[in-house]
């Protein structure tokens, strides 16, 4: 039986002295209680000093605090670094103020509720276990998968903070989709030049190890012990042990065109960008013919992505301004929710770009080598069933559907990450704050999570760098063992828990001395396989504990006995 010391907190008068006295007197006969002390305000420095003194005598192995909510004490001393001579997990709080005094009207009832609350806390205290803090050295090494703009900017920011970066790129060159961009929508500077500068900066940075034409083959281990096997271009393998991994493999686009979109006078926004960049004469030429009218068709795909609207408005302004073309933009909703976009939209309208917002998709037909686009003008109030507006255009520009990078699914299973509903990496959980993945130490950034405009990507890149720096700060990761543990003897190797664990913290390893489900005598010398929880990767959510059919898993900080101790008082 654990010896329990009791501290009664008056909470500056919230719990009246008479009530406290009565409560203490009911505890007199209990064999486990070794002492009880009263304080007017337990969180005051004097009280804490007195408490430390009492605990140093070593009479009590567990402590029950009778007072207010656990938050009150967590915030003031225990668990927050006040040097008490007892492990913080050996404190049990009986919240008499809120659960009895404040919730009961009748004084008799309040006292009875308080008595039960305290008895329950004493019972729970005898089952509480100390939890030690452990630490894991982390070296400043990060693996970034993907050499697009996201990967590059994270690599550069981290390299400036004295972190060594391994930048993995599948292709031969860096830059990814961003190299298709000629101009920014919101900056004068040419996107091409800026990209070239950024890439050459990467090449000159000594703390970035560039691995082109390489890919991840296998990943083992957890935070601090990651083992990443890389397959390089020359078919050699190398193993890295980064402290953190950033996945930034970007997105892909649908290149296959069906129906009218397969027509040679229908091009994509990125092809238009290239055409404009290459145009030296006063007007653009396409297929040897002068282009005079260009129609942009948006929102057939990528309806929730702002990039197409931004690029279309930007290109239409160039067409209208520098190349004497007539630009027409057809969209469902023009996405102006980026900084400066509304102004650009206004400018485009002033320059004469025509905007039509359609409900029903426009129709296309070929007329004398030009594409005729028929669109219903929803802004006009004429009651007419016909298609009132026909535009003869030399070129039709469409957005290409953004798809997950073909690598995504494979990487996802290699890294044990979660995919969202559309096949991009998941970020759906607001609590994971966008760039964090379901696994500790692995971050997901940029277009492989959600395609975005470059200025937003750059903000995201810095935010990822901040996350990584927070993790690596102090070169040590400290964690406590309030996690799940497996009793290997009870494990039947049913593989329920590794499948269910949302954080991939459970693996099966051969470490059990003995296993009840296997007939003894087969091979006594080998160790048996059993599930194993890595405390660094475990979030302590308790899903495996609830699901384990053999009850082989427990939460270290919340063993079954503790829960039963609480439940024992429920029946009355």
């Amino acid at each position, binding site marked *: 039986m654990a010896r329990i010391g009791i501290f009664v907190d008056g909470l500056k008068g919230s719990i009246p002295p008479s009530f406290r006295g009565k409560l203490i007197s009911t505890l007199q006969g209990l064999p486990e209680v070794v002492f009880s002390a009263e304080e007017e305000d337990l969180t005051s420095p004097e009280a804490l000093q007195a408490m430390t003194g009492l605990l140093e005598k070593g009479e009590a192995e567990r402590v029950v605090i009778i007072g207010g909510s656990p*938050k009150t004490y*967590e*915030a003031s001393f225990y668990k*927050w670094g006040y040097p008490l001579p007892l492990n913080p997990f050996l404190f049990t709080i009986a919240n008499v103020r809120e659960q009895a005094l404040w919730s009961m009207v009748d004084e008799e009832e309040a006292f009875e509720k308080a008595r039960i609350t305290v008895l329950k806390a004493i019972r729970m205290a005898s089952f509480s276990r100390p939890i030690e803090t452990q630490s894991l050295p982390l070296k*400043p090494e990060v693996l970034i998968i993907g050499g697009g703009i996201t990967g590059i900017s994270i690599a550069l*920011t981290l390299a*400036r*903070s*004295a*972190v060594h970066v391994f930048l993995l790129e599948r292709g031969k060159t860096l830059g990814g989709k961003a190299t298709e961009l000629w101009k920014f929508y919101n900056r004068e500077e040419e996107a091409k030049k800026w990209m070239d500068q950024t890439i050459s900066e990467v090449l000159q940075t000594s703390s970035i190890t560039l691995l082109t034409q390489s890919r991840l083959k296998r990943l083992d281990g957890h935070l601090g012990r990651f083992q990443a096997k890389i397959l390089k271009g020359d078919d050699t393998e190398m193993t890295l042990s980064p402290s953190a991994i950033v996945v930034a493999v970007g997105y892909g686009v649908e290149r296959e065109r069906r129906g009218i979109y397969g027509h040679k006078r229908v091009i994509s926004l990125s092809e238009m960008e290239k055409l404009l960049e290459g145009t030296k004469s006063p007007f653009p030429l396409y297929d040897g013919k002068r282009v005079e009218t260009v129609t942009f068709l948006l929102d057939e795909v990528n*309806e*929730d*992505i*702002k990039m197409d609207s931004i690029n279309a408005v930007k290109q239409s302004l160039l067409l209208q301004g520098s190349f004497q073309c007539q630009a027409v933009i057809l969209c469902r*909703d*023009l*996405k*102006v*929710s*980026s*900084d*400066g*976009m*509304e*102004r650009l939209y*206004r400018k485009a309208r002033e320059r004469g770009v025509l905007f039509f*917002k359609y*409900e029903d998709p426009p129709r296309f037909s070929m007329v004398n080598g030009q594409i005729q686009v028929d669109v219903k003008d*929803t*802004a*006009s*109030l*004429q*009651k*007419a069933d016909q298609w009132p507006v026909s535009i003869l255009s030399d070129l039709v520009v469409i957005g290409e559907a953004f798809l997950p990078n073909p690598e995504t699914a494979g990487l996802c299973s290699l890294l044990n990450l979660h995919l*969202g*509903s*559309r096949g991009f990496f998941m*970020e*759906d959980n*607001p*609590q994971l*704050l*966008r760039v964090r993945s379901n696994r500790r130490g692995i971050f997901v950034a940029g277009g492989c999570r*959600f395609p975005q405009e470059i200025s*937003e990507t750059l*903000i*995201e*890149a*810095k*935010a990822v*760098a*901040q*996350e990584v*720096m*927070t993790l*690596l*700060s*102090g*070169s040590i990761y400290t964690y406590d063992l309030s996690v799940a543990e497996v009793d290997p003897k009870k494990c039947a190797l049913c593989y329920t828990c590794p499948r269910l664990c949302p954080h991939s913290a459970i693996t099966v390893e051969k470490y059990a001395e003995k296993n009840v489900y296997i007939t003894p005598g087969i091979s006594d010398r080998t160790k048996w396989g059993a599930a194993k929880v890595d405390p660094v990767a475990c979030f302590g959510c308790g899903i495996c504990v609830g699901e384990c059919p053999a009850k082989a898993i427990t939460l270290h900080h919340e063993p079954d006995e503790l829960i039963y101790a609480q439940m024992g008082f429920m029946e009355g």
Partner: protein
Amino acid sequence: MELVNKNDLLSGEEVLIIGGGIAGVTVALELSHLGIPITLIEKNPSVGGLASSFCCKASESCNKCFACVVDKRISEVRQRKDITILTQTEVVGAKGNGGKHEVTLKKGKERIKIEASAIVIAAGIDPYDATQKVEYGYGRFKNVITAKDLDEMLRYQGKLSRPSDGKLPETIAFFQCVGSRDESIGNLYCSQVCCAYALRLIKAIRYQYPGVRVTFLYMDIQPAGTSFQQFLNSCREDKGIRLIRSLPSKVYYSPFSDLLKVRFTEATRGEVVEGTFDLIVLSVGMVLSQGAKSLSQIFGLNYTEDGFILPPPDQKGVFVAGACSGPKDIDRSILHAKSTAFAVHQYLKGRS
């Protein structure tokens, strides 16, 4: 250069964060994780800012409004002992540039002088003052409220009711872009959050009160993140929600029936229709907060074309985080604040 060491890092370097909203709180938490001493000041009696008054907007499932994330971060910052929080405190003066900033704070009648190596301005935004749009009758008609009023009603009263008589409204109209995308009042920018915000509110209301019919009057629906498309489709499929591209010019009030009458164009029918509503909710846009305006004067900062604070070059030691640098939702404010925290950290390290 050495990696950060929690214990001996940047001793004597202190960062002053102005504004205890979600952006300021996030910067404070991020920097204090790196062991940098922080003073966080807030002019209101408690930290939390605008986003802490938002209610959870879940319907059948979570709609990713991020309101719960705010609550969690606020309580985390309150518990941290290494962050000094001064509430009801304002900046009245600042001296110095680069090197050290000497900032004078006012807390009640008291004046406090504080030395800081870096300043982070996260003074946030104000919702657009809807009384300026006289034609919508906000402030004159009881049943014309702002989306923020509605949000607070749901959070603090826990129920939906019509201000004039406390009854459950049967028909509600949401007007989008009140104070945004409007050159007549000088706000030629999109507030970027109101579409998703209003639609989430509508969804939450429709879930709780399936009898309530809602009309959403808009210019262009602006997307918000990964799962927005699914969410928008579920709104489109909902028979109780009408999405109509048309902004009404005026609200007419009938004192006998307490009803509000609105004329708008219905493109699919190709005509002007008249609708009566029990409650009209104005989706007010964002404008730079008054506090942020006076701060930008004190620190000599410039404005962007849209009237938000233009972040000065990093060498100045003054940083801008969150929506006061341009409209942002909670999610993007947090992200922006994290990237600002990184910039601050880089700046401090570059100096020491």
